[in-house]
């Protein structure tokens, strides 16, 4: 039997209730889109979603939609439409594929349920540039198209220590969103509702961290590739009680796997950290490739990005500001290297793979010598793979496969 035939993705049973939850969420958005009495806010994936929920908005995350377009391998087909409008093929392929899909009248959400006809109509678009400037440009395009306000938070970038001055400035910007959100929603701001959503988000974040931390077990009960799917509720439903209920179920399943020593990768030999974006159009292929080689990608910066330990319902604006500024992507390389060091230790990692995503410089940390510094300073083998999150025209499957296989061979040689 070939390695390919042997390689099996061990499905996590909780994926099924998660899919139902995600379906409900998308259907609710579709229904709200048809009901003028309901208000929809679009939000960047690490934007101030808690504030939006506190106003009763249905919250839609275009980046989640971008990932769905990538997973459906629709991106390369629709990106040229955005390029034709002057959005370069070198900028964020979430942006270009999402705008392109909209122009083409296509959405993978329509495959989820017949009631979903496309992306929901926004009443307001709310961004935070803590990830990149592209999200602002992305939202501005839709703002012009729908004729609705685009408001947001301009974050710091590349900071080392998060200081009070940073937090205060961002908290002020989040608070300044309130009057416009009151106007659009027709709802008076209620600090207690915000406290409640922040508390729910904090619980969601804590549960999500516990889920990811289970991969410290040997063998790891889940992989990075599982995580990229299972993180759905932490992204789009944080601040909603249902997300927390789901993660309780998932956590129980993963703990049972640990107690039975049931790994996500049969015969796990190597443990790898993935730094950077997933290659959405190759998720299954990459998951299978690692399984074939008895290698488990146990942890990633990407999945960790929805852990917000600063959330504190007693001080919602300040704690949101801190949580959304503490993020890995906002920080300087010194912080990032220390962060990855801690991950390498906690998850007992043998090597680090850096994904240099052509259209996502902010999530590509291999461009300023970091992989080489790890080898030199820590003796940890690193690999850089060139690819992209969505635009599969930028991915060479053969090169990616050879690189990953050769890296695992290298890890095997090190072990002797």
């Amino acid at each position: 039997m070939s390695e390919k035939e042997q390689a099996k993705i061990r499905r996590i049973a909780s994926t099924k209730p998660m899919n139902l939850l995600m379906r409900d969420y998308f259907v609710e958005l579709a229904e709200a889109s048809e009901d003028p009495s309901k208000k929809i806010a679009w939000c960047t994936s690490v934007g101030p979603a808690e504030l939006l929920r506190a106003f009763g908005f249905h919250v839609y995350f275009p980046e989640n939609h971008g990932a769905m377009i990538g997973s459906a391998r629709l991106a390369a087909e629709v990106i040229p439409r955005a390029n034709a409008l002057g959005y370069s093929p070198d900028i964020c392929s979430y942006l270009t594929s999402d705008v392109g899909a909209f122009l083409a009248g296509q959405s993978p959400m329509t495959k989820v349920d017949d009631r979903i006809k496309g992306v929901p109509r926004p009443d307001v678009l709310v961004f935070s540039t803590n990830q990149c400037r592209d999200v602002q440009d992305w939202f501005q395009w839709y703002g012009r198209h729908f004729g609705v306000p685009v408001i947001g938070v301009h974050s710091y970038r590349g900071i080392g220590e998060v200081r009070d001055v940073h937090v205060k400035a961002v908290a002020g910007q989040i608070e300044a969103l309130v009057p416009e959100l009151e106007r659009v929603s027709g709802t008076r701001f209620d600090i207690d509702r915000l406290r409640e959503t922040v508390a729910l988000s904090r619980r969601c974040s804590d549960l999500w961290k516990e889920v990811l931390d289970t991969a410290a077990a040997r063998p790891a009960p889940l992989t990075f590739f599982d995580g990229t799917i299972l993180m759905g509720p932490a992204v789009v439903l944080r601040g909603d009680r249902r997300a927390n209920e789901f993660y309780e179920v998932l956590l129980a399943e993963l703990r049972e796997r640990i107690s039975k020593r049931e790994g996500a990768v049969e015969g796990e030999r190597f443990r790898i950290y993935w730094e950077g974006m997933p290659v959405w159009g190759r998720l299954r292929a990459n998951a299978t490739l690692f399984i074939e080689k008895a290698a488990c990608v146990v942890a990633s910066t990407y999945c960790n990005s929805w852990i917000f330990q600063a959330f504190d319902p007693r001080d919602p604006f300040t704690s949101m500001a801190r949580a959304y500024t503490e993020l890995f992507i906002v920080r300087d390389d010194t912080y990032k290297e220390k962060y990855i060091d801690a991950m390498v230790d906690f998850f007992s990692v043998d090597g680090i793979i850096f994904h240099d995503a052509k259209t996502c410089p902010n999530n590509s940390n291999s461009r300023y010598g970091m992989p080489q510094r790890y080898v030199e300073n820590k003796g940890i083998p690193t690999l850089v793979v060139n690819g992209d999150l969505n635009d599969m025209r930028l991915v060479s499957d053969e090169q990616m496969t050879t690189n990953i296989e050769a890296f695992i061979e290298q890890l095997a040689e090190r072990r002797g």
Partner: protein
Amino acid sequence: MADLFCGVDAGAATTKVVVADASGGILGSAVSRSGIDFAGTARKDLDEALSGAGRDRASIIRTISTGYGRTNVDFADGAMTEIACHAAAVHFRFPRPVTVVDIGGQDSKVIRIDAGGRRTGFRMNRKCAAGTGAFLEEIALRLDVDLSELDRLAHGATDPVSLGSFCTVFTMTEILGLIRHGRRIEDIAHGVYDSVVKRVLEMDPLEGEVVMTGGVVEHNSMVPELLSARLGRTVAVLERAQLAGAHGAALIAARDRPETDSK
């Protein structure tokens, strides 16, 4: 009697087969265009290599395949990446820490190996033909010269050009401009090879002893000469450099064979 080991390098451009004895000595080899039938080409080359060694298929104990078509070689007992195989072949001749530079038909690689032959790191080119054999093939085609002539032409350069483009297509546009300005083809050919070397130097600082492998350096001595000039020290070229992947695969077949593995 089964006492030989086989390595098949099913590369993007050419397939190479080596049959070697247990001590790693090459007894027979074959090279041909890979075409579209990787398995068929590999079988044909295997028979040719065995014929050269005066042996038959029953002599083979174990076969390892490598190269882009490695999983298509249906008679192989296992597959390894070309990075592993080139490292093995170089370590066989250079049993000390070295940096391997392999320029293949479709990609270029830099592999660092330690005194024990273990890889300590490697780099491959990006998704781009620049700096590979495919780049040279394309330029030769556009210049309307036989690929085998390009190296000779480059050695006749008197006033070499410097090409600034990264991309194969735009390099050709740049070359067309140089032709229009009356530059000699010999000087342009030199610039084409220098462009390949520059792409390699972008991949790694190339510290320590450097050994080159692959078909491009076996057939184009201008490449190691220019790399030596740019590094300020002589780089070695592995003997029978084009066979490095296949030889390394045969060495790994011999090294990793299970105790019970016999036919």
